């Protein structure tokens, strides 16, 4: 239920590794800031007032927070090991499954490639909903399993262990009281991410999500906008 703390066990999933998350920051998240911008545009199309109060769950190095701040938003970040050096409005060291925040504080909650780290996503989403104003929005981007080919879930440890199908994600959102407004496929970002990982020498243990041949591991990357009902 919690993000891992302390040194990761041997053979830990890439996305769980704090060294990766600390170093990666914006440059290596699938889609980068361009994807965040695209997601925010979709939110605004659906009625999100802007600038707004935003929480970035899993803010890491704070690149997303910085981006929001530059646009005039009040941005808060939450991470189990934040690595911001005082640029963002405020960063909280806390566990996303038990956020020490009051109810209805934010108009927008952003989860970029972070929910797949959790096995109990429901609890995390409920927390997100709690801190959202009524009618507030969730912007989520994450890996998802696609296609009818056999979902080849690796034995728990690989990068795609937290990837669910699109239906599963949307059911999780619904279960927490979030209505999916938009879905966009951005799976090309995974291919580009795999390329960047190789280029910058961050080697994932086991296969990268894009390592499939013949489509055996049909992992995609999706962007969702959901509204708290």
């Amino acid at each position, binding site marked *: 239920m919690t993000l891992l703390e302390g040194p990761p066990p041997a053979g830990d999933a890439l996305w769980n590794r704090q060294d990766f998350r600390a170093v990666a920051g914006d440059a290596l998240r699938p889609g980068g800031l361009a994807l965040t911008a695209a997601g925010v545009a979709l939110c605004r199309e659906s009625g999100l007032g802007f600038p707004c109060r935003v929480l970035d769950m899993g803010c890491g190095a704070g690149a997303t927070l910085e981006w929001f701040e530059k646009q005039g938003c009040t941005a808060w970040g939450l991470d189990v090991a934040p690595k911001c050096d005082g640029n963002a409005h405020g960063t909280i060291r806390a566990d996303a499954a038990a956020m020490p925040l009051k109810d209805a504080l934010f108009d927008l909650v952003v989860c970029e490639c972070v929910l797949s780290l959790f096995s109990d996503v429901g609890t995390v989403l409920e927390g997100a909903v709690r801190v959202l104003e009524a009618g507030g929005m969730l912007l989520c981007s994450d890996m998802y399993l696609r296609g009818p080919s056999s979902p080849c879930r690796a034995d728990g440890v690989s990068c795609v262990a937290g990837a669910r199908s699109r239906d599963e994600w949307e059911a999780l959102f619904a279960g927490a009281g979030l209505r999916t407004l938009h879905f966009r496929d951005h799976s*090309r970002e995974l*291919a580009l991410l795999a390329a*960047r990982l190789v280029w910058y020498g961050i080697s994932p243990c086991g296969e990268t999500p894009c390592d499939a041949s013949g489509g055996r591991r049909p992992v995609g990357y999706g962007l969702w906008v959901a509204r708290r009902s």
Partner: protein
Amino acid sequence: MSLEPNYAPDEAGWECGNCHRPLEQGKVQACYLDAAFDVLLPRCPVCGLTMIPKSLAEGKMVEVEALVEEK
């Protein structure tokens, strides 16, 4: 903190044939299709002539080109 790979020439002794200056590592952007990558490469400080060492071309580059192409 910079992440980009730093590729010095595979052997010592290279300099710019035109300007006769020793080479310095400079940051450039390598592009392929819709992706761009930062890298430090040997360059002539005067004319900008840039070297791609064989170890880079036949190593990371070919691997990353295939990933970007989804080959």
